[in-house]
């Protein structure tokens, strides 16, 4: 089909189609990304487990604290306050899923990260859940071995697609579509069309048969 002509020649023969396809694809993909793909925010807060008087480190309880922060004991008040203050519409499960905890092995520090679409909400989730954990943990774990957690700094980060990545992907996609459409157009043009028969005076068409799907040749 395209063996007799190089790809470059095919594209050059249909350069208008290729150019229009490329431009439309780039524009549509970038508009789609800007309009429909929204950024999200994350807020992190570091928590430090203090050492007990008898020398036991609190690192053993880090996992417990990480589990505790996702329980209804901590999250239920947070959820209630979010609904009241910010009109939060997510469920308890949504709230739980928006929180991640991470820690390094052997470290007394663990990080609570909240993610969401509203910066104020994610900051509130991170701060409030950390505050409640400090309040509730000392009542649940052996009080004589646990000292209050110290709260570190709070940060909010905005996340969105790198625009250069979007532009690059859209250009590559547009180029691919342009090539495919050019090849398709080249193949289509190789076939006899109604217009070709009307314009080709040297081909004497004496009759045209219009068939429907019920006719078998």
């Amino acid at each position, binding site marked *: 089909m395209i063996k007799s002509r190089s790809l470059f020649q095919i594209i050059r023969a249909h350069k208008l189609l290729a150019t229009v396809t490329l431009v439309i694809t780039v524009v549509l993909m970038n508009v789609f990304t800007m309009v429909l793909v929204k950024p999200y925010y994350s807020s992190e807060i570091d928590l430090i487990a203090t050492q007990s008087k008898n020398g036991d480190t609190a690192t053993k309880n880090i996992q417990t604290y990480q589990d505790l922060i996702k329980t209804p004991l901590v999250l239920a008040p947070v959820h209630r306050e979010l609904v009241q203050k910010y009109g939060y519409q997510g469920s308890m499960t949504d709230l739980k899923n928006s929180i991640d905890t991470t820690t390094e092995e052997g470290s007394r520090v663990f990080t609570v990260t909240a993610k969401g679409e509203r910066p104020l909400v994610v900051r509130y989730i991170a701060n409030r859940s950390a505050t409640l954990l400090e309040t509730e943990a000392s009542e649940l774990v052996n009080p004589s071995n646990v000292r209050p957690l110290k709260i570190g700094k709070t940060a909010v980060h905005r996340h969105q697609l790198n625009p250069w990545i979007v532009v690059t992907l859209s250009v590559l996609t547009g180029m691919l579509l342009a090539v495919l459409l050019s090849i398709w157009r080249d193949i289509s043009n190789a076939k006899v069309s109604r217009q070709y028969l009307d314009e080709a005076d040297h081909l004497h068409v004496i009759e045209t048969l219009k068939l429907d799907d019920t006719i078998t*040749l």
Partner: protein
Amino acid sequence: MAWFKRHTGGQTTVVFEQPHAKQVANQLRALRTTLIQNHPRARTIQVTSPNIREGKTFVAANLAVAFARIGQQTLIVDANFGAPTIHQIFTGAPSGGLVEALNNHNRNQPVATQYENLDMMPILTAQDSMGDQLAQPRFKQLLVSWSQQYDRVIIDSAALLNEPDAQIISTLVDATLLTLRVGRTKKQPVEDAQALLRVAQAQNLGWLAID
């Protein structure tokens, strides 16, 4: 779009016996009228196409029926040695066919079909190209004999660009009718087929476009 029309595969339709194919039947009647008025002396007509599956058997079979329906004694000859199908479209009781006739078997005469005024000379089993036999005087003698017996002789031959048979036949018949399928036949084979007939100095009736 023409791409999604599937007309091949299955028994060729004889449109004159299909109530839903009146429009196509009328178009074929128009073709018949054109041939009668513009080419009254064309008694032997070959139907061919640049490549396979471009409607030549459909046109040949239905054109033959069209002529038979107006009382013209018509013979349809299957000269598509590689893919003979006329004996599948028309019922008859041939003891032999064109191959046997070319080999000087005098017993092999055309046989009547289910249509009044229409006989057929089929090919019973597929063969390789018989260009050499077609070029010999025997085939021309057969054509002359048939044109004396019948008002019209319609020859369904092989694709023009695939085998030399159609080109050879085009030099022996009164006229050649070419078929093509819009949206399927490529432009270059159309040009090549037209050029081939010009080189052979054949009488080209023109193109029948199947859409």
